[in-house]
């Protein structure tokens, strides 16, 4: 009981101060603006890399279409990525010096192309001041969905789960730039999983957005 009184005694000034503050400065101020940039039908063209595999590096080109249900929720209806793969010096060395067969399973994991679909959630929308002279609007989003990956082997279609995040910088009502970092968890075999991270930068064209 004595401790409870002591605690109350310590809390009282803080509570009184908060109440006095609310009495003197009532209300909360917010800047409420029409959302300047709104997405609707989005066509995306991008380039990127598949940086993770030690035996090859993929240079990718992607295209996708996304329908935005609201400012925070969208469905990337379809996306397709083609990868132009460049063998690393490690692979060349293995083939040259150690006669490793090009059909070795690790070599056959290289991605040729993939298609998929994702759901996109954009909880962050904000703006930043650029050199105190202009304001740049952006949004950040999380995406997740499924992918079909074609890897470099016969009958090489594999399912994958795609998870990632991205950021979009708005340039205008119809144009924005997206940076996506995603990871495809590819189920390559019965008990084998390979990760295919993708880093992409692209331009998004927005159609049908309301003013």
């Amino acid at each position, binding site marked *: 009981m004595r401790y409870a009184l002591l605690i109350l005694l310590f809390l009282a000034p803080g509570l009184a101060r908060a109440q006095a503050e609310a009495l003197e400065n*009532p*209300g909360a101020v*917010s800047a*409420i*603006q029409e*959302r300047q940039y*709104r997405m609707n039908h989005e066509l995306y063209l991008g380039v990127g890399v598949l940086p993770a595999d030690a035996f090859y590096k993929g240079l990718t080109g992607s295209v996708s279409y996304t329908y935005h249900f609201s400012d925070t929720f969208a469905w990337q209806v379809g996306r397709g990525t083609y990868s132009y793969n460049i063998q690393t010096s490690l692979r060349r060395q293995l083939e040259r010096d150690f006669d490793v067969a090009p059909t070795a399973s690790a070599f056959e994991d290289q991605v040729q192309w993939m298609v998929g679909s994702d759901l996109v959630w954009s909880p962050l929308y904000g*703006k930043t001041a650029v050199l105190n002279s202009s304001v740049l609007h952006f949004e950040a989003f999380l995406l997740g969905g499924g992918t079909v990956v074609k890897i470099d082997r016969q009958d090489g279609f594999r399912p994958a789960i795609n998870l990632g995040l991205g950021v979009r910088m708005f340039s205008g009502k119809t144009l924005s730039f997206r940076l996506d970092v995603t990871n495809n968890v590819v189920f390559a075999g019965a008990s084998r999983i390979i990760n295919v991270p993708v880093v992409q930068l692209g331009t998004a064209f927005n159609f049908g957005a309301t003013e």
Partner: protein
Amino acid sequence: MTPRSLIAALASAALVVSPATAPAQSGGGSLPMPPPPSGAKATPGAAARPATGSPAPAAKPAESGAPAPAAGTEGAPAAAASDKKPEAAAEAPPPVPQKVDPAIFDQALQDYFDGKPRDAAGPLYAWLQAAPKTDDNYAWAQYFLARSLIDLGLTHAGASYLARIARERSNPNVIPRALDTLKELTDRPHDDVMIDEQVFGALDLGFLPEDTGAYAHYQQGLVDLRVGNERWANTHFAKLSETSAEASRAKFALLVTRLKQVKEPSEELIADFLGLSKDEKLTREARNEAALAVARLRYERLDYTGALEAYNLVKLPELDPGRASLYLEEAWTRYKLGEPRASLGILTTLDAPSFRDEFLPDKYLLRALIYRDLCHYLPAKRAAKELTRRFADSLEAVRNRDDLTQDLRLRRAANSHGGTQRASRFVETLDLEGERLGRYAGSFGDRLFSHLTKLYDLSRAEAVRVYDARLAEAVRQEADTLLRAAEQVRLMEYEVGLKLYERVKKGAKIVAPEDEQLLTPDSVAFRFDGEYWNDELKSYRVSIESRCIEETP
């Protein structure tokens, strides 16, 4: 907003198009003419004027066979003048004209076209002093001296030479160029009397090219409007092409003049202003002024929704903070419309650093009114007290009958608009150019330097006189505004004091909060934490509950 403050605001808008002029003529324009050479004769054949209207190369005396233009100034070595100190030269009587080789004109012209106005100015002035006024190149020398001075940042000195060309009209080929350059200078702080009234307001308009003629017609119409002769003004304005920017400006000036004359503005007048607010030929500033006029007139007619629509017509450059008076007027309009939270949000805008020095006594009154209406009596009292606290020095000065022009706040308020602002900017320009002149002391030579020093001293003295006259009147008006606000605030304090200690009757209930939808699905909210962003200044909204109680029967 009180009707009187609205009228004051209207009057300030009117001042934009019909600036009050100083009671006396400006001395800035009456540049003392360089004395003609005592024995100089007109030498018509000395410099042949080309058909293209460009300055004729000054023929050397030996080639032309004519006597040198400054032949009568023999015996006064040029070095003598350069030995004198600038201060002494400024006080001494006009120096005896020196003999100047006519080739100096050609060389100075060459320097000017080579992009060396600093080298050109001194010789051009020396040539002007020696040459007779009837010389074909006299006006050209004045023109290029003016251009050199303008290029060097001495716009007032340049303008005074251009004004002389326009008044003397000695060479018809030079006048259009001089007037065009003068017209460009009117966009900056300038001597209203010398340029607008004595040059454009008094020109013979027959010979002018279309553009310059239109501007001159517009200026002469303005002069007529200022003296209350609308019919004469219309004669000038009628000559303006319908599609010209001057025609739109003239229409604006006419509307403002009519607005000052009528007691109850008609719907037609408002519609005319509305038309001008969308007229792309006008500058953005003028279109905004027209939109503001519409908003103010609608406010006067208690059409608050219409007033708000008109305020929305005001377009600002991206990230421009805008004008404090505009925000305050919109805040009053929203308050009258029954939108206290939006009004309070706009008052938050007026606390932004961009507007911290603005003189807006009404701001505190409006804030106190809103808090009172929402039954937040302590903040209401505090907001009311804030006015007397913030303007304590100024109120004290008014009570003590001190010289109000010495009060920093009132002075700053007076300097922020109308004719006082223009006069203040002109004085600042003269100060700046006076300092700049000092940098050219070495390259101009004693004679031009002392001449310009004298010109700037005289012009500044006159500009300060005009400014002081306008300031005295303007601070009196600002003090009136302050006193009225202080009086209303005292009433408010009394009223709030009564409410504060009012007994709450038994059974009284808090009024149910209004259904206030600040955030629609299309909008985005950024919580304000004291950091002002220019793009948000128009968007602040305050979420505040009413604490009023409902008396039950």
